[in-house]
């Protein structure tokens, strides 16, 4: 009798587990009838996990599938949102909030959640359910980072050796003596680079680290918002926002069409000590060359051959690559594995031409290198065929995260929509 009971308990548990496993897998989740308003490649479908969550910047998904989103503006005094799908339909049923600071960066590594304000980086322990152990017990890992408004978001990612990488954007367009002012020359050397315009490396197990105790891992990066650790290559990758206003500041050198296309938005594979060249140079994907910046003697023609690293891939100007994610899941077709997804927040600096971006791009990789061809993966966030003015965009993609089942999550920082993109054959 005892054995039979044990067996039936085991059997019912097994059936229950099977039920849970199948009911939450992407194959069985019903997408939104309009795919959440997105246009996707064949076989892909999407749904809105949540709507009107707030200005959700970057997102992280734990092993249990709960979403942690970092807010740029406090929601009733709180800056991190936790969304949970409790009934397995793919949509979030519960929303809780914690942390009293705004910011962009959020990441999960091992049993810890890491989040950034615009000046600091914090660490929270997660329990076996992937929940925060104590919301009020944030450990301050890093403090005192530059925050002067412009380019102040501190994106974060982690390697497998106990390090966290933090972007410190330059509070400047091109390191001119007077920012964005016509006729003002570039400062030489650019003093901003001492404490910004690069990626800093800190330890995940040390408290209250500062510039003095951290490592300037890479420099010459104007403003990186998307960054991710590539586990296949064991290397840091970053996406840089290129400088603005070539035509406005140098109308004789750049017409409005050229100024809309240039400089390129760039993705770099970073090694320790790399210099990507901002503010002295910019990248021109049309020429395939590094160009001398006009504030430093450039004329739109002078190239720079050495010294600074080349991008892994370059995109048209001003599209604002805000989220970077190397896909490691098995849900999507094989060609997506180890390739890069980039969330382009969308441009403003292309007017009078129409704006560009406002979509998620896929960069195929082969043998650890981009094939060179990129493609629009998910479009339609803006709700417009053409975005003429940035305020017309209904949603703007910002953060990316991969779920435990290989679904791709995208956050929007206009209305706070969280999208889930699935492959459903």
């Amino acid at each position: 009798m005892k054995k039979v009971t044990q067996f039936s308990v085991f059997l019912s548990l097994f059936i229950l587990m099977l039920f849970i496993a199948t009911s939450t897998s992407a194959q069985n989740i019903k997408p939104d009838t309009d795919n959440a308003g997105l246009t996707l490649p064949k076989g892909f479908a999407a749904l809105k996990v949540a709507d009107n969550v707030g200005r959700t910047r970057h997102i992280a998904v734990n092993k249990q599938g709960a979403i942690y989103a970092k807010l740029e503006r406090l929601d009733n005094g709180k800056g991190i949102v936790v969304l949970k799908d409790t009934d397995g339909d793919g949509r979030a049923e519960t929303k809780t909030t914690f942390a009293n600071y705004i910011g962009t960066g959020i990441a999960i590594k091992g049993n810890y959640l890491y989040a950034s304000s615009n000046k600091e980086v914090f660490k929270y322990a997660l329990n076996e359910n992937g929940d925060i152990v104590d919301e009020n017990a944030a450990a301050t890992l890093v403090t005192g980072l530059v925050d002067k408004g412009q380019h102040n978001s501190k994106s974060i990612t982690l390697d497998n050796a106990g390090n966290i990488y933090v972007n410190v954007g330059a509070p400047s367009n091109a390191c001119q003596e007077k920012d964005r002012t016509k006729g003002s020359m570039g400062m030489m050397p650019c003093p901003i680079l001492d404490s910004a315009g690069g990626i800093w490396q800190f330890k995940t197990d040390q408290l209250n680290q500062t510039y003095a105790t951290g490592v300037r891992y890479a420099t010459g990066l104007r403003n990186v918002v998307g960054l991710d650790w590539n586990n296949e290559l064991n290397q840091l990758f970053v996406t840089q926002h290129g400088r603005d206003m070539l035509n406005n500041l140098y109308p004789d050198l750049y017409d409005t069409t050229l100024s809309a296309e240039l400089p390129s938005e760039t993705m770099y594979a970073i090694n320790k000590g790399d210099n990507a060249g901002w503010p002295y140079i910019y990248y021109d994907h049309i020429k395939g060359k590094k160009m001398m910046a006009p504030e430093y003697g450039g004329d739109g023609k002078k190239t720079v051959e050495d010294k600074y690293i080349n991008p892994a891939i370059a995109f048209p100007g001003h599209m604002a690559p805000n989220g970077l994610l190397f896909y490691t899941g098995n849900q999507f077709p094989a060609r997506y594995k180890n390739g890069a997804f980039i969330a382009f927040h969308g441009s403003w600096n292309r007017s009078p031409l129409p704006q560009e971006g406002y979509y998620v791009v896929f960069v195929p990789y082969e043998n650890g290198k981009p094939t060179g061809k990129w493609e629009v993966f998910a479009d339609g966030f803006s709700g417009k065929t053409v975005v003429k003015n940035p305020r017309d965009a209904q949603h703007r993609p910002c953060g990316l995260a991969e779920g435990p089942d290989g679904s791709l999550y995208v956050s929007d920082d206009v209305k706070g929509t969280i999208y889930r993109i699935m492959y459903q054959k």
Partner: protein
Amino acid sequence: MQRIFLVFVVMMISFTTVMAQTNNKLAAASAARGKMVYLQRCMVCHQADGGGVPKLNAPLDGSTAVNGTNIAKLVKYIVKGLNDRIEIDGEFYENAMPAADDLKDQQIADVLTFIRSNWSNKAGPVTLTQVKQIRSKLK
């Protein structure tokens, strides 16, 4: 006597109407010149629709300050730029505004007249005299 008064009133009305029409014409001409300044110097950040860029560059269309009576503040923003992080109609904007102190007084009057009367804005023109007066105190 009554007739003289009536003639006087009619004369006054036609005079003010003509004056108003002249002012309107002047304002329209100023706005037209201001549009050219706007396209070259302001549109890159504030956009063709005056809507600005959410979170980066403040909108001019519908802005309380732009449509307000504190012309001195508007002239100052153009001449001196704006580096302080200030709240504008409940929102913060991250980009610094460069000083456009190379603009002539007339150009500033023109571009403000354009901005204050374009899109959904319905505020009155800014005159050369006003700009001259304000700017002399800025130095």
